């Protein structure tokens, strides 16, 4: 008997074998490229033959060269603003919808649930071009005027003061369904007796939400925040679809993602010679920003989970 038990205790090293296949692919396709891109940030030149080590040269240039610095801090600020709008509009509304959808007296719940979720199934390019047409006074101006909404016929995506907000809201509109569904799932998991107890104690709906439901779904709130944070700091597609990779108009919608693409992958139009080392430097900084944001957030929200 004892012998038999031994084979499944941690003393046996068999588990390594089971880990190996996954570890192999993880190292080849995730860990190694990640570490290699950290390394690449210390080099200049695009190909092994022309590559040379320049230490922190890329980082120094990024923060001292007038143009690079302006572009980087511009994109950095825009990305935070983009994240802020997503947190407020996407996640708060997602929470609101989730609370409404989990209300037991709610009628037609499945229908609304589907409506909220549908945009997430569309391709970003499709929704991007759709909104690009909708927000363009040249194509929608006449219709809006006929609806007595002429004041809405503005070049929303072409105006520096509104472009980034609009792009962020388009992203919110598309992805709202994800946090909504996750909040719905979390709220449904709250034991009925907790809510009943609050009810009996005389708590109103607002109090029940803040003091009972919210603390119990905090780990999910944290997860959503982290996902939003990571996705927003890597956002590229929505700007690509609605504006261009320069972050038009006048770099107003330039995010870290578009800046990285322009510098590290495609090169600035029309010369189009990318600077892989500088791109890797930007990616490395983004990596550390993400680490600095995610780790405390995980600690704070997941401690009870």
């Amino acid at each position, binding site marked *: 008997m004892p012998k038999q038990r031994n084979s499944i205790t941690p003393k046996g090293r068999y588990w390594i074998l089971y880990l190996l296949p996954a570890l192999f692919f993880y190292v080849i396709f995730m860990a190694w490229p990640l570490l290699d891109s950290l390394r690449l940030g210390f080099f200049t030149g695009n190909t092994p033959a022309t590559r040379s080590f320049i230490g922190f040269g890329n980082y120094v240039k990024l923060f001292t060269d007038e143009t690079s610095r302006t572009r980087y801090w511009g994109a950095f600020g825009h990305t935070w603003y983009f994240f802020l709008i997503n947190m407020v509009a996407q996640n708060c509304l997602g929470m609101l919808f989730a609370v409404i959808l989990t209300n037991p007296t709610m009628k037609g719940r499945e229908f609304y649930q589907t409506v909220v979720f549908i945009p997430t199934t569309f391709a970003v390019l499709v929704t991007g071009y759709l909104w*690009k047409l909708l927000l*363009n006074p040249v194509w929608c101006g006449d219709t809006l005027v006929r609806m007595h909404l002429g004041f809405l016929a503005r070049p929303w995506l072409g105006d520096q003061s509104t472009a980034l907000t609009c792009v962020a809201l388009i992203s919110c509109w598309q992805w709202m369904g994800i946090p909504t569904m996750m909040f719905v799932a979390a709220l449904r998991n709250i034991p009925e007796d907790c809510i009943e107890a609050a009810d009996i104690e005389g708590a109103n709906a607002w109090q029940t939400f803040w003091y009972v439901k919210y603390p119990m779904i905090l780990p999910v709130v944290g997860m959503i925040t982290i996902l939003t944070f990571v996705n927003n700091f890597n956002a590229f597609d929505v700007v690509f679809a609605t504006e261009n990779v320069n972050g*038009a108009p006048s770099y107003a919608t330039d995010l870290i993602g578009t800046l990285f693409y322009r510098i590290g992958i495609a090169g600035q139009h*029309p010369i189009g010679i990318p600077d892989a080392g500088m791109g890797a430097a930007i990616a490395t900084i983004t990596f550390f920003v993400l680490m600095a944001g995610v780790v405390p957030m995980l600690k704070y929200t997941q401690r009870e989970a």
Partner: protein
Amino acid sequence: MCFALFAQGTKESAASATEKVTLTMGSWRTDDVEQMNNLLAAYKKIAPNVDIKFQPTNPPDYNATLRLQLDSHTGPDLMYARSYATGQELFNAGYFADCTDIPGLMTNFTASNLAPWQMPDGRMFAVPFAAVSHAVYYNKDIFAKNGLSIPSTWEEFLSVCDKLQKAGITPLANGVADEWDILECFFLGMVPNFVGGASERVKYESGEKKLNDADFVAAYQAMADVAKYCPKGFESVTYNDSQVLFNTQKAAMFVDGSWTAGVYKDATFQWGVFAIPAPKGRKTAICFHPDMAITMNSATTHPEEAKAFLAWLCTKEGATTASKNLPVGYFPMINFEIKLDDPHANEFLALNAGKETDARFVWPALMDLYAPMNQAVIKVMRGEITAQKAADSVAALKK
């Protein structure tokens, strides 16, 4: 294995005329596969033993992809070469072959058509293939209905715009949402009218003239002046939107490059092109931009065959075949009189007659100023800065 390789080697060195040779050609013109295959099929009649395969790459990725291929010695035998600095860099790196001694190259092209693919010491790194032009597309039906004629000065152009606007028609289809088009097609298309052609451009490049002199300020001012004739909400109008606006007759004119001439081939209205007119007292010049050239890999295993193809492009016969297979709106750069089939293409080419032509202003030596100039033009059009400020902002960045 070893024997096989040796056998291959000896066979190649003693290649007879009947030996089959396959060459690859790299390009950024993914739209032209059909035309290029026709061209290459025509060449096959002349050189039956040479098979050239056209393998284009997505335009924005071409430079990076080509670089990668060349660095790893998997580059194509023949390839499109970018003009000026981008091409020179690859020649300096030793990837492009020296084309100077290709028969016909130095004699059958004008100096200005050779320049974009010429090193400062005069060596050539590619054979000029095609140029693009820039002009005003106009809707002849709308012009006729409103009793308008082709303006011959910039002032007349503005008054044509004004008349169209008063008649309730959007005069210009141009927008700024995609950014590049307003600079490349409109501003750089008309800038020779304001600052002069190549002979003046070099003065700006050398610093003899300042990029914020009165002529340049006038050019920016011209952009500010046309902004009100662009579609309402032109800030959101993309290049595609502009094409649709012109094609659906919602706008009467469109300042654009020749490469889109093919887009309007099914238009339900009559259209034509006229040169972007110069201000009163100045000579109208054309921005005739050298766009494509073909070169050969210095490391190709078939240098003779590759060279023969390039030499063919320098002959009248080759250039004519090539031109016939160029998409509408791309023009041969060779000296021979070549008759194009498309009437609109001929109309475009006719604009050059008797006028000075030049490449796009920033391309030859001031490419660093592309993005700042683009932003300056857009800001002036939005009314955010004055023409003087716009010129100053670009001039300040000149090294």
